[in-house]
């Protein structure tokens, strides 16, 4: 996946000279995850800019660049280190189009490596999607496959709206053939990764492979599970989600960030509001605990795994 992201950046930069990258260590080093590897060499230090170490400064500078017609792609080094830029993000990036009645749009892509499962120490494993998704004006996108990493990142950079592009860290090393010519579903569309008749697991980003594994394991217990990959939290694909839920009547939402006030709560509410009469059981959530991200030696207890998902599926055999 890391290479797919790198290819997406390279291809966008080749296609559009206004695309500029900036962030900490993105130049010579190629970023701590090497996502920008080789880009400074090909496009020069101005288009792949090693900035001073200051997240608000990075994003604030990107805003000014976007105001002058560039398409900045910002790399935040880690999820929890993007917080100093929250003010710029919430007050300016998200609102500029609205504040100026459409006169000034900010086509900025903010790439945020997010989530745990890689044994990172604290402040290196946060899932910050709910903060972003709760901020009107931002698109929030997260790929779970190699093809999506490439296609969604290119689409995000080409978007005239600001996009928070959440990169599931633990999938950076996932492998698949990348077909750069393959058609990728547009931003805002959920994709059914697996069909099934008994229930649907609704998920995104780092939890997708876990859900696919759980669906496989569930066969042994007689469950035929569909797996829906949201791919985009904002815009949210109500239509596909509701279609699938109506057809199977049972749903479990799975994500690794905390459950309270999380994205899963929003999805559960939407599904309940729109599909109530099609539901054979309450919509359930399987999420991380409502705790600060734990130390790495304990993180496996926190992250929703196959067993926890299967336990939830078992509860879908619901009787009042």
């Amino acid at each position: 996946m890391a290479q797919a992201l790198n290819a997406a950046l390279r291809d966008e930069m080749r296609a559009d000279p206004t695309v500029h990258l900036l962030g900490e260590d993105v130049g010579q080093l190629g970023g701590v995850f090497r996502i920008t590897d080789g880009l400074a060499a090909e496009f020069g230090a101005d288009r792949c800019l090693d900035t001073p170490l200051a997240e608000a400064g990075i994003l604030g500078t990107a805003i000014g660049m976007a105001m002058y017609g560039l398409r900045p792609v910002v790399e935040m080094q880690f999820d929890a280190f993007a917080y100093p830029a929250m003010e710029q993000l919430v007050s300016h990036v998200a609102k500029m189009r609205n504040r100026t009645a459409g006169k000034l749009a900010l086509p900025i892509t903010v790439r945020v490596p997010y989530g745990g499962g890689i044994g990172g120490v604290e402040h290196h494993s946060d899932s910050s999607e709910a903060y972003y998704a709760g901020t009107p004006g931002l698109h929030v996108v997260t790929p779970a496959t190699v093809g999506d990493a490439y296609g969604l990142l290119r689409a995000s950079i080409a978007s005239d709206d600001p996009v928070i592009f959440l990169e599931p860290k633990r999938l950076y090393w996932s492998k698949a053939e990348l077909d750069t010519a393959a058609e990728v579903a547009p931003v805002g569309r959920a994709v059914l990764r697996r069909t099934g008749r008994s229930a649907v697991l609704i998920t995104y980003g780092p939890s997708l492979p876990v859900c696919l594994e759980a669906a496989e394991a569930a066969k042994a217990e007689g469950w035929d599970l569909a797996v829906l990959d949201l791919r985009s939290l904002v815009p949210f694909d109500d239509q596909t989600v509701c279609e699938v839920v109506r057809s199977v009547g049972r749903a479990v939402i799975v994500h690794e960030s905390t459950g309270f006030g999380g994205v899963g709560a929003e999805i559960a509410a939407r599904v309940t509001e729109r599909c109530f009469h099609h539901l054979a059981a309450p919509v359930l959530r399987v999420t991380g605990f409502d705790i600060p991200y734990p130390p790495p030696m304990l993180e496996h207890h926190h992250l929703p795994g196959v067993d926890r998902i299967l336990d939830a599926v078992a509860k879908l055999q619901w009787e009042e």
Partner: protein
Amino acid sequence: MTVLDHRPTMPVPGWLPGATGPRTDPAPLLPDDSPVRVLGTTGLDKYDPDLLRELYRRLVVGRRYNQQATTLTKQGRLAVYPSSTGQEACEVAAAMVLQEQDWLFPSYRDTLAVVGRGVDPLQALTLLRGNAHTGYDPRATRTAPLCTPLATQAPHAVGLAHAARLRGESVVALAMLGDGGTSEGDFHEALNFAAVLNAPVVFLVQNNGYAISVPLTKQSAAPSLAHKAVGYGMPGRLVDGNDVVAVHEVLAEAMERARSGGGPTLVEALTYRLEAHTNADDATRYRQSEEVTAWQEHDPVLLMERQLKALGLLDEAAVSSASEQAEALAARMRAEFHAEPQLDPASLFAHVYAEPTTQLREQAEQLAAELAAEGDR
């Protein structure tokens, strides 16, 4: 042996590639010993009398604009107005030094600079009136929206100036802030980025003595705010912010320096806000009337008028012409603000995204239905 004994020795400047050590001699960066003044000095001689009269005219019109806007808040026609009464010299000079292609990044108190830039005086007030966030087209007027979160516009100015320079275009960005704003992280990050990128930016800090109620002594322990520039590697300038000619001169020099590739400058203008922070504030709770009176003697409009009259550069005709223009603008503001503004509730959903999401479309329909139902009632 302690850990400290293992402290690496400081590399000698130039010792290693990328070695530490000052890259710029701090001496030429240090700010002026005392605030630059031009009024009352021979420095005025080199000024074109027409420019001086124009500065004066703008001060007079600006003062009236401030007064009228404040009155409109009392009548409930304007939601809030952070007046720049007493600071007009900074506002006027800032607008005057900008060329057409340059960009202004104002804060909430800088409506007057925005107007000086050529933005319609009424459209510049939509934010404070409450009918729209930004009533002008930032791209067309090269004026960023009035910025409310303190100092956050400073990095935008840096990014814009940097982008323009990459494109080989001669654009300078001028960011305006208050003294309180210099304590914010964004201010420091912007200065640092500007210096590292050698971006053509000028930072104008209007030190009006207070951040709402907090005096400068509780805001910063630095010898001056201009001193803050040195640590980032850019010159700091100190100017009498009530001397419109001095502010014009210092800003014009800084703009020229930026335009010719010399990099950013931080300008601290010493001034005073003669009114309260906004109409909602009670300044008597934190400052003495003697202080205000002393500054009234140093009023930027009076200073300029006295000086020009003493030099025989201002006749009665020029004075009354300026005041007529001021009254005409005030009358226009009253007329416009007494009419109810046109508001379109559908605009709430129009500019959140390039394409509204399904959710926003549904909410727009819901609001439209609610409004239709109200209409039927």
